[in-house]
């Protein structure tokens, strides 16, 4: 098998905690994400220096950087780990068993001890080895907010806010024994406290602010009053605290003597304080989303250093801000609400802000993927327009032909001129080799710049041709994410061509199987050149009982329309088009009202049903859709009679666009085994948690008939279903044998076919179905599973399986064949069925990503290309991986390594040789005649 075009990129995920500081002359940028990864970025270009994915998916991830040992300490559910900052290598890890319902408070390194607080628990861990030195439990519901050094061998902890008391505890750093416990009685109910360094600041709703230097044994609180404070934020600088009130934002300077309000600005959620690395002056920076403006203030002089607009505009609002000031320039790191990370560079003298690099970390939260053909090129479109004039006279057609030819010629000339200029430019700038330039001059690909684009970066304009290529391998990958943006990626290098933010009130949909979804539909492709392509995305509106449909152009990313609907229960793409070649969306809201977008009132050309189920009770319904009266009527009801602990865990139906090329399989004796490829067949997996019983159902959703049901006792999740053509492959964990297994069911009509022309679910089959079922042992776990997809469905479908260790495996369907048996008949041997073997062998050469490991893969999207042999694959998770696969080999194109030079050389030599030989022969024959 031959694989081309591999593109792989790792992401960190939606940033949760940022650390951006200059330490010992190095710019350190560390990001921990909601996808449980910790990464170190190169501040110069935004590339990942190293990334460590943590195991737990449920708990939050906290980290701290220790500049003395140059390590990053990470805490993530029961594990504390230390990574070397410069290499990202694990130094040590330690298991700390903690109760589940508490969260991590402080993670800080003091001297040689890592202090970790977790609810009332305090742990001291040796920073060099990770061994637990001591642990202390205060057995009350106090939470610790700050820790500071007190003398040589003890620390002071602050927190434990209960009964109007703020506790300060002195602990020994060596053994964790309590040396002193001090409670500061505060006369009113403290609601919010924050600590930084050795200062703790609390505020209450009356407006009193109390600050205390808790590192001292006998601390005396200082107080001040502010109007209507809402929240207090600690900054990395221990002397500065920010208080947000209803009308403004105050920056407080806290010393052990007094609190001074040094700056008052407009209120905002996004701000940061940092010390300039050259002048050591503290700088405050705030971002105002309504204006898109960033403001920087010198905290010593309260002088406004910078007021500037951040580019690009019309993006998601900024949610996090960190900056690094180095005298004349300020590097501003922003995180937008859709997880886009930008590094801006602002020059204080010029007051201009430019983007250094961008990372679209929202791509780590992909929910749905669609691949769309790029639009026809202008030349192709002109050819198409020539055939638009129907029933035109001869003269008119002739004129059309001539004008279009002239137009084409003109275009060709302009293009050549353009290429010529570009080639000349390339020669002058010496950017590409002569042969590349020569090829480019005669219509080859534009030479790429030496530095490849990073996936998840902004596409540079005019580097990528936005038109369809000959084999239709170039596609636009449209992805919807749960972080609130829709992206258009170019499949050649994965760069982001456009992004569309869906709004602050975006909330993903949740389905019955407890999956988070942002459904994406292609309403109109690019094959209708007179109409532009349209896509739709559906999501819920936060804090409202409504949902929204956003219609956009998937090629340019421009918004076309927005529909506000009642909270939706279902959204479906109709398999029929309206007059404008648009597939309408059918929306069913919680009041069981149906609606079509765009409006569709004509009767549906085929009787159309929807399949509905109740995941916990196992009730199934078939409902008929009437587009004229806009009503749904139940046509059948079925009960699977679930036990209390049983529920549906996975559903797989076939997309209406799926094509099946061959209606049957040729047997060894030349008879045909006809496939039962019911397009309305839905596969259900039901799982009983108590009995550990997996049941697989195959149901004809038009008439409710259960075609097949099979049980696997003693199984466990995860379950994955792949349902296409006439087969279903599913995976489960076999608890008894302690291994993953893949089951496969194949349905056949038998040797005679009921109806070759139509498939009608309302009629019965001539003969009972022949059903083959088989199970195989799979030696690895399974993260995601899918089947390849080609244009005609002629090529074999292979299974693509994402493995937890980072591989993406292509398994030939010939191995996952339900008709494999141990004793093969000669006919079966003729058919080349492989004898049954319990194990599915995992050959490392079948890993289509080679050594480029991809982790936490949540889904794999396959799409057909213009070549029947080739299927396009995008695996997504915290990594993105794109490639092309050809399951039956590249039978329709020459191989990449086809030796054109040798073949043309041989041709030339042969032609030349034949001429020479002819001449010699003529001469010889004349000579012979004379002699």
């Amino acid at each position, binding site marked *: 098998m031959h694989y081309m075009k591999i593109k792989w990129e790792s992401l960190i995920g939606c940033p949760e905690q940022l650390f951006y500081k200059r330490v010992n002359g190095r710019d350190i940028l560390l990001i921990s994400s909601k996808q449980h990864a910790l990464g170190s970025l190169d501040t110069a270009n935004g590339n990942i220096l190293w990334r460590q994915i943590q195991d737990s998916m449920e708990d939050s991830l906290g980290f701290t950087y220790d500049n003395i040992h140059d390590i990053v300490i990470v805490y993530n559910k029961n594990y504390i780990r230390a990574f070397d900052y410069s290499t990202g290598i694990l130094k040590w890890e330690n298991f700390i068993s903690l109760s589940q319902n508490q969260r991590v408070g402080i993670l800080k390194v003091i001297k040689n001890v890592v202090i970790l607080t977790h609810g009332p628990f305090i742990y001291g861990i040796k920073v060099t080895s990770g061994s637990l030195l001591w642990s202390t439990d205060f057995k009350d519901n106090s939470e610790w907010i700050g820790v500071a050094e007190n003398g040589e061998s003890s620390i002071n902890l602050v927190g434990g806010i209960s009964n109007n008391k703020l506790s300060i505890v002195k602990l020994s750093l060596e053994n964790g024994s309590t040396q002193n416990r001090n409670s500061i009685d505060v006369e009113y109910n403290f609601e919010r406290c924050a600590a930084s360094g050795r200062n703790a600041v609390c505020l209450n709703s009356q407006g009193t602010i109390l600050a205390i230097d808790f590192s001292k044994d006998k601390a005396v609180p200082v107080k001040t009053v502010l109007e209507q404070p809402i929240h207090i934020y600690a900054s990395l600088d221990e002397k500065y605290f920010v208080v947000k009130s209803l009308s403004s934002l105050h920056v407080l300077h806290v010393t052990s003597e007094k609190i001074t309000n040094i700056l008052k600005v407009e209120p905002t959620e996004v701000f940061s304080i940092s010390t300039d690395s050259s002048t050591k002056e503290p700088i405050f920076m705030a971002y105002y989303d309504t204006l898109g403006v960033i403001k920087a203030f010198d905290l010593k002089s309260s002088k406004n250093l910078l007021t500037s607009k951040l580019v690009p505009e019309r993006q998601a609002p900024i949610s996090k801000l960190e900056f690094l000031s180095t005298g004349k320039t300020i590097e501003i790191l922003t995180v937008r609400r859709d997880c886009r990370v930008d590094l801006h560079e602002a020059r204080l003298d010029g007051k201009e802000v430019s983007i250094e690099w961008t990372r679209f970390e929202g791509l780590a939260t992909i929910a749905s993927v669609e691949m769309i053909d790029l639009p026809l090129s202008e030349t192709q479109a002109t050819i198409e327009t020539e055939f638009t004039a129907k029933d035109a006279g001869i003269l008119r057609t002739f004129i059309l032909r001539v004008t279009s030819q002239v137009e084409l010629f003109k275009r060709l000339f302009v293009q050549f001129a353009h290429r010529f200029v570009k080639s000349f430019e390339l020669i002058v700038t010496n950017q590409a080799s002569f042969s590349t330039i020569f090829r480019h001059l005669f219509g080859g690909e534009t030479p790429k710049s030496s530095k490849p684009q990073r996936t998840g970066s902004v596409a540079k304009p005019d580097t990528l041709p936005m038109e369809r290529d000959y084999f239709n391998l170039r596609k636009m990958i449209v992805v919807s994410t749960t972080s609130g943006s829709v992206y258009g990626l170019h499949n050649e290098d994965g760069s982001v061509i456009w992004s569309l933010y869906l709004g602050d009130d975006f909330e993903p949909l949740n389905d019955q199987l407890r999956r988070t979804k942002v*459904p994406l539909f292609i309403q109109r492709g690019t094959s209708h050149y007179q109409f532009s392509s349209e896509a739709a995305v559906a999501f819920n509106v936060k804090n409202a009982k409504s949902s929204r449909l956003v219609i956009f152009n998937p090629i340019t990313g421009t918004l076309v329309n927005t529909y506000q609907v009642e909270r939706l229960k279902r959204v479906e793409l109709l398999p029929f088009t309206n007059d404008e070649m648009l597939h309408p969306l059918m929306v069913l809201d919680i009041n069981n009202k149906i609606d079509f977008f765009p409006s569709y009132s004509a009767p549906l050309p085929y009787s159309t049903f929807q399949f509905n189920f109740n995941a916990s009770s196992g009730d199934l319904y078939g409902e008929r859709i009437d587009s004229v009266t806009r009503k749904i009527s139940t046509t059948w009801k079925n009960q699977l009679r679930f036990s209390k602990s049983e529920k549906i865990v996975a559903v797989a139906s076939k997309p209406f666009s799926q094509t099946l090329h061959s209606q049957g399989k040729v047997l060894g004796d030349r008879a045909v085994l006809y496939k039962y490829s019911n397009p*309305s067949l839905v596969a259900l997996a039901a799982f009983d948690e108590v009995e550990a019983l997996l049941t697989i159902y195959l149901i004809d959703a038009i008439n409710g008939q259960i075609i097949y049901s099979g049980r696997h006792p003693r199984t466990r999740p995860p379950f994955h279903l792949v349902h296409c053509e006439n087969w279903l492959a599913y995976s489960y964990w076999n608890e008894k044998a302690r291994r993953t297994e893949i089951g496969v069911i194949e349905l056949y009509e038998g040797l005679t076919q009921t109806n070759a022309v139509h498939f009608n679910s309302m009629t019965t089959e001539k003969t009972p179905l022949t059903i083959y079922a088989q199970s195989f042992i799979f030696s690895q776990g399974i993260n995601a599973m899918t089947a390849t997809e080609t244009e005609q469905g002629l090529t074999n479908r292979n299974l693509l399986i994402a493995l937890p260790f980072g591989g993406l495996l292509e398994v030939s369907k010939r191995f996952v064949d339900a008709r494999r048996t141990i004793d093969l008949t000669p006919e079966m041997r003729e058919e080349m069925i492989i004898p049954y073997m319990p194990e599915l062998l995992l050959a490392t050469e079948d890993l289509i990503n080679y050594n480029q490991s991809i982790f936490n893969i949540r889904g794999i999207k396959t799409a057909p290309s213009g070549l029947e042999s080739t299927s396009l694959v995008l695996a997504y998770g915290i990594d993105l991986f794109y490639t092309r696969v050809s399951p039956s080999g590249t039978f329709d194109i020459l191989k990449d390594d086809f030796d054109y030079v040798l073949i043309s050389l041989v041709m030339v030599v042969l032609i030349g040789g034949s001429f020479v030989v002819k001449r010699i022969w003529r001469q010889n024959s004349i000579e012979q005649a004379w002699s």
Partner: protein
Amino acid sequence: MNVMNKWKLDLTSGGAKIATRGFDQSMNPPGYTPNFVAAQQVEQGGRNDQQQQHLLNKRAWDMALGPVKALPMNMLMMYMAGNTISIFPIMMVAMMVWRPIKALMSVNAAFKPLETENGTSLIVHKLIFLLGNMGAIALAVYKIHTMGLLPTHASDWLDFVPPAERLQYILSSDVYI
């Protein structure tokens, strides 16, 4: 050997040549008459015509029955060729089809010289010739059939069958809560 190549012994025409040269008749051996052959021909003229007709007839029948006679040999050859699909059996079978077809195309041309000599139409002969060649073709086709190259099963036409058109559509994506 070289010596043998250098000279030629001509026994047939030598006598005539010698006779025409006008050598002395007395040089001839006793009882030699140069006119002997011609005299004999003149003498057997009447019987010869009949014989020629018989010969022509025989040749025509030979020609007509040739393909029929070749059938057993063809059968043997095909049996020997075996049923495996590889280049040599295929070539043999192709030749077996092609040769009779070529012969069928040129029936008139093949019988033309015989017809002109015979002066009568050889329609029966031609028919038998045709039938024989047809038989050869049939034999070849049977061979192709036994080799499994004839598209006589439903499986051979399977790839040309268009996918079945569905009469109902089902919408079955997720149900949201």
